[in-house]
């Protein structure tokens, strides 16, 4: 038993004791020169204020230089796609909206467009419903970009930017609350239209916001763009060119910051985006600075779209006319959020039994969707949001997959960070604008 390479043993009063030496550990430690080798492995996250939620990065550092970085995700996996399969198609909106919580209306829009394409009713969505969708998606894009500015500012040392960004976002959330009853997770877009009409008071607030935000944008630029620290932290940091972006599947502002004007609103329009006049901002620097410039410019373009959408907003139905799909109830915002309007309840309970049956069938069972599969892609604030929906002909989704841009874009972190400094990992990761709710779903 006492051959070399095996543990030695000896008898004591307590019993037999083995002396364990770990293989060739001594030779390994002996060969490392502690002065020339400073390689350490640092685990950053999942609970770290600079990793945008529960993202975990395993970093191999040599001094302050990142040798290797491995992103680890999945800490916020909530099984949204699986849950959808156990609810009817309309209920799906309440689930998908919770995926990317900074852009809930985009999740809803992608899902609803997919269901509508499966049903073959894309052309029947009313003009007003489409305009409201565009209006709210662009408001949501601004609020998402504002959170990006806020959190990135904070991570790079501009704390006041964080306060300003969240302050302006609050304004948009008030508009959402006024319309859908909820600040986040609205379930406002439904297959066939939108849950309810935009009140006049919200329109007025949007008009005020169009005047209010441009002034604030100037303030942000005055505060950040000329700032030497901000420039040093962003310029030439985390560079990823077009080739790298396409290979890694990176879309959205990151791809546009590398110079490719690929925006699905222009290249493969949906919801009537082809009728709006706006530009696709690009940069050529392909770094964090470029992404900052692109996002600021996108906020301005979104304001242009919102203004046009307000002008296009004509009175009319907000839901598809087909009674086999349209939600039977008139919804109303009450004190505790959105619910059935009292008038509708009085009608189905007191006057029309057929209305009651119709309501019951559509609400409990839902509508059937012909078997087949579709893929719908929309321009999310972070890139391409794709929804692959499969129906088996029933009232529940058979399978829904969300191609979330946060999930795909996070793959770029090693390409951006390896060989750079540890501090640039934060700037590079932030410039991707990952939202873990969307990434992990």
């Amino acid at each position, binding site marked *: 038993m006492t051959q070399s390479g095996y543990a030695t043993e000896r008898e004591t009063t307590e019993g037999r004791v083995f002396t364990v030496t770990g293989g060739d550990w001594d030779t390994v430690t002996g060969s490392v020169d502690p002065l020339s080798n400073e390689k350490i492995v640092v685990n950053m996250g999942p609970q770290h204020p600079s990793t945008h939620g529960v993202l975990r990065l395993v970093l191999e550092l040599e001094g302050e230089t990142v040798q290797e970085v491995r992103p680890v*995700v*999945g800490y916020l*996996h909530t*099984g949204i*796609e*699986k*849950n959808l*399969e*156990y*609810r009817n198609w309309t209920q799906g909106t309440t689930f998908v909206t919770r995926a990317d919580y900074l852009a809930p209306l985009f999740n809803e829009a992608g899902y609803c467009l997919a269901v509508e*394409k*499966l049903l*073959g009713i894309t052309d029947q969505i009313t003009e007003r419903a489409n305009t409201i969708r565009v209006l709210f998606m662009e408001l949501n894009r601004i609020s998402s970009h504002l959170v990006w500015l806020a959190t990135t500012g904070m991570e790079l040392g501009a704390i006041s930017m964080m306060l300003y960004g969240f302050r302006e976002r609050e304004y948009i959330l008030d508009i959402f609350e006024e319309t859908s009853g909820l600040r986040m997770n609205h379930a406002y877009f439904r297959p066939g239209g939108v849950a309810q009409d935009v009140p006049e008071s919200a329109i007025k607030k949007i008009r005020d916001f169009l005047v209010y935000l441009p002034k604030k944008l100037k303030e942000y630029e005055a505060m950040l763009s000329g700032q030497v620290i901000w420039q040093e932290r962003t310029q030439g940091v985390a560079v990823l060119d077009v080739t790298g972006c*396409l*290979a*890694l*599947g*990176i*879309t959205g502002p990151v791809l546009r910051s590398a110079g*490719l004007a*690929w925006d699905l609103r222009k*290249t*493969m329009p949906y919801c009537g985006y082809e009728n709006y006049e706006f530009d696709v901002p690009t940069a050529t620097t392909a770094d964090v600075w470029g992404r900052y410039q692109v996002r600021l410019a996108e906020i301005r373009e979104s304001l242009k779209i919102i203004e046009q959408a307000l002008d296009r907003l004509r009175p009319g139905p907000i839901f598809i006319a087909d009674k086999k799909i349209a939600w039977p109830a008139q919804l109303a915002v009450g004190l505790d959020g959105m619910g059935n309007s009292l008038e509708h309840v009085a009608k189905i309970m007191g006057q029309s039994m057929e209305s009651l049956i119709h309501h019951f069938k559509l609400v*409990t*069972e*839902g509508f059937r969707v012909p*078997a*087949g*599969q*579709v*893929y719908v*892609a929309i321009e999310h604030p972070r890139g*391409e949001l*794709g929804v*692959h929906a*499969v129906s*088996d*002909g*029933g*009232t*529940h989704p*058979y*399978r829904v*997959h969300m*191609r979330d841009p946060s*999930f*795909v874009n*996070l*793959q770029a972190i090693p390409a951006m960070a390896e060989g750079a400094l540890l501090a640039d990992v934060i700037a590079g990761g932030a410039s991707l604008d990952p939202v873990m709710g969307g990434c*992990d*779903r």
Partner: protein
Amino acid sequence: MSIAPQDGPQPVGADIDAPAQAPASPQKGMFGITGTGDVSGFGGLVRRRPEVVGSPKPYGGYFDEVTDALEEAYPGFADAIERVVVDRGELTLHIKAERIAEVAQIMRDDESLRFELCSSVSGVDYLNSDARRLHVVYHLASMTYRRRVRLEVAVPDGVSVPSVTSVYPTADWQERETYDMFGVVFAGHPNLTRVLMPDDWEGHPQRKDYPLGGVPVEYKGAEIPPPDQRRVYQ
């Protein structure tokens, strides 16, 4: 609300304590009723799942150009492409699993195809309706021509699919997710580990025979069963 115990078979789902039939396979029956408790007649209904059939040529739009260009550039076209389906304005090429990496390479590199971006890779489990139950679906986008195409492969459980990561590096995490959720093994993937579920998780959650795993919830004195055990109206 509890029904007094009776002799003979109980209507499933009529009592809160008796879990309703899980809608694992929504082909048979309605209202979640199975067994003999059914007096409605709906329990005997069998819904057929429509067969996927190939579309006849011409496909219309750019679909003919894409298939023709692929046929020209790829000598194994007739062997590799099982079926071409055009549905709802989308083109789907059903491809033999072992050929997917070759086809992806041609789709990316050929001058007249140029599908530079692999938008999405995901899985669908067609349990009970396809002997090759696990399907992997690739959505490719051509930025040059502004086109989209879907590639679909089908494998039975336990058969691997060649990885397309060497063609589209973006498929790395997406293939990992498909492996994680469906148990499809991608041969040649550099690091095929779970990505969303914990590393030591057992089973593949998005498979149709994997339960939702909900717990009953008590609300105002009544117990509401988890969603996969509720009575469902199909």
